[in-house]
């Protein structure tokens, strides 16, 4: 994995060649000559060598192709290095993977012209309804809802726009009739069940776990004591794979501690402990020394770093899958720290070796209702579209319910009750940069393996993309979730830790 230093000073960003930036590349104008020279050097080296260039390219791990300078430098040093070494074929990953299975998913509805017209009308009415809600014209909004429900009655609501629209109409309905801030009440047990089916029905969670694990594994290289802090343990589905990968590590596994954060269990149960026991059992079976601690908290803001008992001898990985955005709506504390600032602050105080962050690639946190509604409609239409490729029930139906709660939260709720405050990666980069983190780039090997993961799914249409060191998983041309990795910028001597441990 490549560590990149943070170069966010204003004079440096102004120097970036604007025309190249418009076509996806970051090169400083002042460095164009040097980059050009290196391109020439590399070209000469390749022309004059007898090596198989395509093999070399396959074996090299590439990072952030948008940074041409670094990309070329990396190739130059790899080329210089490998050109003189004999090939060790046993180390090469298996590149001749069989071509992906092409199961074309049959759309369950053939859309005839009448359907298409209804679909267009429906979307228009949804927008108009959302607009009326924003303006406070609730009677118009209400009558539009009736109109839309009428339209829906004559449409296919099992798939496509009919299904998604149904959820949005329902959400608008709740908002209008005063059910704001009463988020779809669902018990913890129900939440667990829906989550599990969502995990099975589509690759989003698997991709998140897989990519984060890959990054964590690499970060833990060379460390004998490692500590993973999971911001949302749920069923601990992410961890068996990491435990097994650590077990197989050349040189032997480290001592692994896992701290799982999750809500307190109802009744006398201790769900966190149960998951911990299961993971301990697995670890024992593969000879990985393992210790588990559960931290029960309703909200991440309530977790204090001392609860995590991090020792300075450990390499720490903080893992946040779809959790950070929930902090964006909480109010500032008495020291004027917003929830996110506070939590990012104490994460940094743990001096983690790596922070893995996976978030929805969407802008669902605008203050304007119309903007949020429109964004959400586009986003969830795409997600639901991808779900239609899932052939397995009841996974698919449950996954839809899982998403429906998100939709409801985005559309109906305001203030602290609105927790689904998704923001795109570009905003997270800014926040994490300001909080003292620098990017750890995910490279082409992670990309390659994520792509292979996708071929296990029957649906064509999912795609992995590289985005300046992060990886996104999307449906067709729309990225839907973004995975990134971070490291704390070392504190200077003059800085003190502001947060009580």
């Amino acid at each position, binding site marked *: 994995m490549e560590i990149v230093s943070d170069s966010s000073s204003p004079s440096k960003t102004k120097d970036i060649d604007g*025309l190249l930036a418009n076509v996806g590349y970051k090169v400083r104008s002042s460095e164009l000559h040097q980059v050009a020279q290196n391109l020439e050097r590399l070209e000469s080296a390749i022309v004059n060598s007898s090596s198989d260039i395509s093999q070399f*390219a396959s074996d090299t791990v*590439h990072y952030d*192709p948008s940074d041409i300078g670094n990309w*070329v430098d990396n190739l130059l040093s790899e080329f210089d290095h490998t050109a003189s070494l004999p090939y060790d074929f046993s180390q090469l990953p298996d590149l001749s993977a069989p071509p992906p299975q092409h199961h074309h998913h049959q759309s369950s509805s053939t859309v005839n012209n009448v359907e298409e017209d209804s679909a267009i009308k429906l*979307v228009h009415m949804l927008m108009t309804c959302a607009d009326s809600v924003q303006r406070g014209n609730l009677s118009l909004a209400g009558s539009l809802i009736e109109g839309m429900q009428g339209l829906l009655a004559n449409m296919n609501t099992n798939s496509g726009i009919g299904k998604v629209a149904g959820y949005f109409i329902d959400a608008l309905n709740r908002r209008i009739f005063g059910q704001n801030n009463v988020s779809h009440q669902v018990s913890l047990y129900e939440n667990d069940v829906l989550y599990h089916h969502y995990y099975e029905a589509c690759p989003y969670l698997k991709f998140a776990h897989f990519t984060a694990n890959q990054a964590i594994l690499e970060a833990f290289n060379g460390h004998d004591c490692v500590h993973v802090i999971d911001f949302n343990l749920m069923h601990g589905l992410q961890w068996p794979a990491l435990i097994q990968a650590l077990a197989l590590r050349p040189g032997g596994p480290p001592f692994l501690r896992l701290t799982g954060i999750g809500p307190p269990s109802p009744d006398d149960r201790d769900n966190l402990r149960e998951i911990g026991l299961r993971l301990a059992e697995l670890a024992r079976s593969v000879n990985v020394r393992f210790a588990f601690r559960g931290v029960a908290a309703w909200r991440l803001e309530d977790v204090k770093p001392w609860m995590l008992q991090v020792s300075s001898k450990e390499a720490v990985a903080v893992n946040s899958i779809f959790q950070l955005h929930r902090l964006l709506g909480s109010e500032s504390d008495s020291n004027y720290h917003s929830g996110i600032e506070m939590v990012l602050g104490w994460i940094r105080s743990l001096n983690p070796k790596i922070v893995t962050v996976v978030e929805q690639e969407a802008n669902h946190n605008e203050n304007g209702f119309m903007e949020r509604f429109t964004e959400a409609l586009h986003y969830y239409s795409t997600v639901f579209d991808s779900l239609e490729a899932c052939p397995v029930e009841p996974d698919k139906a449950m996954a839809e319910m899982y998403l429906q709660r998100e939709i409801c939260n985005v559309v109906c709720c305001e203030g602290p009750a609105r927790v689904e405050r998704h923001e795109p990666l570009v905003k997270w980069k800014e926040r994490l940069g300001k909080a003292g983190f620098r990017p750890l780039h995910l490279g082409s090997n992670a990309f390659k393996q994520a792509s292979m993961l996708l071929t296990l799914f029957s649906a064509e249409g999912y795609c992995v*993309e590289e985005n300046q060191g992060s990886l996104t998983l999307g449906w067709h*041309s729309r990225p839907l979730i973004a995975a990134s990795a971070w490291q704390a910028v070392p504190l200077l001597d003059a800085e003190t830790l502001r947060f009580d441990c």
Partner: protein
Amino acid sequence: MRRHKRAKKTNIIDINMAGSNEVNLNESKSVVPLNTWVLISNFKLAYNLLRRADGTFNRELAEFLDRKVPANTIPVDGVFSFDHVDRNSGLFNRVYQPAPENVTTWGIIELEKPLSTTEIVPVIIFFHGGSFSHSSANSAIYDTFCRRLVSMCKAVVVSVNYRRSPEHRYPCAYEDGWNALNWVKSRTWLQSGKDSKVYAYMAGDSSGGNIAHHVAVRAAEEDVEVLGNILLHPLFGGEKRTESEKKLDGKYFVRLQDRDWYWRAFLPEGEDRDHPACNPFGPKGKSLVGLKFPKSLVCVAGLDLLQDWQLEYVEGLENSDQDVKLLYLKEATIGFYFLPNNDHFYCLMNEINTFVHPNC
């Protein structure tokens, strides 16, 4: 039918050729701005890494290296975009339109009303280049180019994400192009003018230009109206080696052996470069005499080693009594239109503008 004299072959090459076989990178550096040189050289390098000697292609690494951008329904610099995915094929078209004047409608895609009931709004179906193997409709270089086309030529652009070789050889790209043309022609929301029809043009650079030609032939044969074809240094070739190929091989970013690789990857196995897909007016080609073929604007870059083929193409159109205008840019290299930092770019945009607004 207007005819334009084509440039005499003796005017084409006006550069001092040292006759060396070595790659002389300094020549290309002196004819393009430095950032353009870095951009195209970077592509050249990346592409070298992706082609394998056995004819296979490292698609995974290609997708990793390609810079992509999502569509954006919110206008940026006066242009917004959205993707339409065909459920059956899984392919998408990216539609680019000028921003609506009414800011409150930003973000909402209009699919009921036509583009205009009074004015004519040309719809340019665009096929991106990449020698049939590289790039996508959502590649940053092409997304940016299509946006510029919209704002500078006051047109709607539909960029087609056709299937690429070597995974999908001839005729897949042409079929995808044909389907895209029919899709565009049948969208009521792409209609304009008092007679409510879709004013369709086709355009493409490199392999995209080749696709535009072949789709236009089929359109003419099947009576689907295309108002014009715009080909930017289109990808054509043949078995013989032309003068420009011999003299410019390796001098301006492109090597002949690379061109050969892409044809082997695209054409049906066992076929050579005189296959009509590659050489439409060659020994296996056919005449277009009598066909209602659209008027063509063919832009040839004077430093492109393929120019002799492109000029033969222009000649072939003329010999078939078709309307063709040649825009010969003597000092342009391939890819001059990716960055708006040279006169060729603006010259081209002006020509395209005039081409798609013939009555203005």
